[in-house]
């Protein structure tokens, strides 16, 4: 039972990532591609948090309540990583959207296969 739960958590995170990758690789709309990137990011963040989870662990904060006791804590490092990744993902999405606006102004389209002035 526990096994299934663990795998389903991992599995769903990976599924979310795959959905993101699918969107990025097949959708022609630039906005949709950016959304795909975000989904990809979220899927990955889910996966990372899931990896760091320890069953029955508490929040990794040293408080007087846990001091001196042998308490299980979830690994804090993946959470820190995820926080950083979220911030970076946010930055990337912001830049991406601003680029989409610029592209739309210049090309009057947001179809990625119509924006191919630079090639070969």
């Amino acid at each position, binding site marked *: 039972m526990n096994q299934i739960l663990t795998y389903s958590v991992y599995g769903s995170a990976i599924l979310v990532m795959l959905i993101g990758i699918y969107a990025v690789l097949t959708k022609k709309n630039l906005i949709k591609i950016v959304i795909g990137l975000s989904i990809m990011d979220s899927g990955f963040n889910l996966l*990372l948090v899931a990896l760091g989870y320890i069953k029955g662990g508490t929040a990794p904060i040293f408080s007087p309540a846990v001091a001196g006791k042998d308490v299980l804590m979830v690994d804090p490092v993946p959470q820190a990583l995820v926080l950083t990744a979220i911030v*970076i993902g946010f930055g*990337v999405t912001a*830049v991406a959207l601003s*680029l*989409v606006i610029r592209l739309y102004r210049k090309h009057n389209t947001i179809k990625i296969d119509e924006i191919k002035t*630079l090639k070969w």
Partner: protein
Amino acid sequence: MVANPILYIALPLFTAFLVPLLAKLWKPLVRIVPGLVLAYLAIMSVVLMQQVSPEKPIIAMIAGWKAPWGINLVFTSFSGFIASLISILAFFIWLYSFGFKKVEFDDAQKYFILFMLLTAGSIGVVLTGDIFNMFVFIEITSLSAYALTAFYKGRDGAEAAFKFLLIGSFSSIMLLLGIAILYTYTGTLNMAHLALLMPQVPMHAKITSFLLFFVALGIEAEMFPLNGWAPDAYSQAPGPIAASFAGILAKAGIYALIRVSYTIFDLGDHGGFELLLVMGLITMVVSELVAMRQENLRRMLAYSSMGQMGLIMIAFGLGTKEGIYAGLFIMFNHAVIKSLLFLASAYLVYYTSRKKISDLDGFGKLLPLTSLLFGLGAFAIVGLPPFSGFWSKLSLLIATANSHMEFVLATVLAVSVIEIIYYFRVLGRLYFRKAHKEIKVRKPTWNSVVTMIVLALVIIAVGVHPDFITGLLHNAATDLADKADYIQKIIPDLFSQTLN
């Protein structure tokens, strides 16, 4: 003077955020302060390079936490060499772009902020001893690179930047996945500690993680077929930024790739080096062949740049100390020479919107000095003596021959012939065609002339007397080749524990 590796990252980052405030005081400060900071870093590099030796790396701990718990910056002969190269080159690129966007103040402000971020990020990638920290710096570098690629509104910068971003996002996801896998099995993020614990990691996880790193960093290092972004970004970014892509960004990327394959994973002898070698070979061949048929000067230089990156990968893929030495030599030469080429070409194609090679006709007369410097750069990059490119090519070929790889040797040389053809075609146009009528010429400013001449002098000086640089290269190669030494210097306690 205060010389601490932390300043490499702290100072430019700080400056980047200080610039908008300084602008309120006096607008020219926006230009001057970054230069002062970069000059300080450049001088600091010289000082630190004299202190450092393979036996005595300089390790800086952030906030007093010892490795592997805290984040540390490791200035060894190898990483220090690349960091110094980047910081000195960044100073010269600043000098070149000192008068950039004289009129539009806002643009200039953006430019200098982003440039400082790019520099800080790249040096951070090189100096950090923590793998997640490296990821963060790569992201800083990439984000500023996206923005700089899209700097010109008139060009197709946005398109190039979007492609760059699209591929870059994949890079960051893969990098994080690779880090996550390593972390699950080792519970550490410190590179030395990771290297120490690597034997515990099961083979399949190690390989998957390595491949994720390989692809993610291969994107930054312009490996084929991951380099679709490169020609677009190089050709659309402002001239000095194209130079810093070649000299700074790509160098940081290849450094990370090398560090990961040499130090962290001990897969080199199990096929990791061969993979690097083969990918390098493919990258070089494809890029140089494609470069041959380019009509756009900047794209041609970009493909040539990718070809050189392939050459560097080949050198490191040999896995011998000679190969490392050659690879470092090519890195140095490529940084200097390609910067010179990009900087000179920025003036050659200043007023033509398409940047076509055919627009270069007769520029030898219109811009004699710039054309001459471009020609010198072309001679150097194809490896003709007495310029610096020759010595790196010689050392690469010796290393390849000594590894008994005749096929690689022949391919590298055959591709060099192609390189000669397309560079000399450009030179032929510069000097032996009649100029188009009513052509507008942009005379280079004094500061860019000084920059280009300094770079050219470096090329000639190293070409005539390579001993200026060989000592540093030897130290760097020794340093990289000895992985156990790296671990021992950073985490001596844990290292001795494992031994016992």
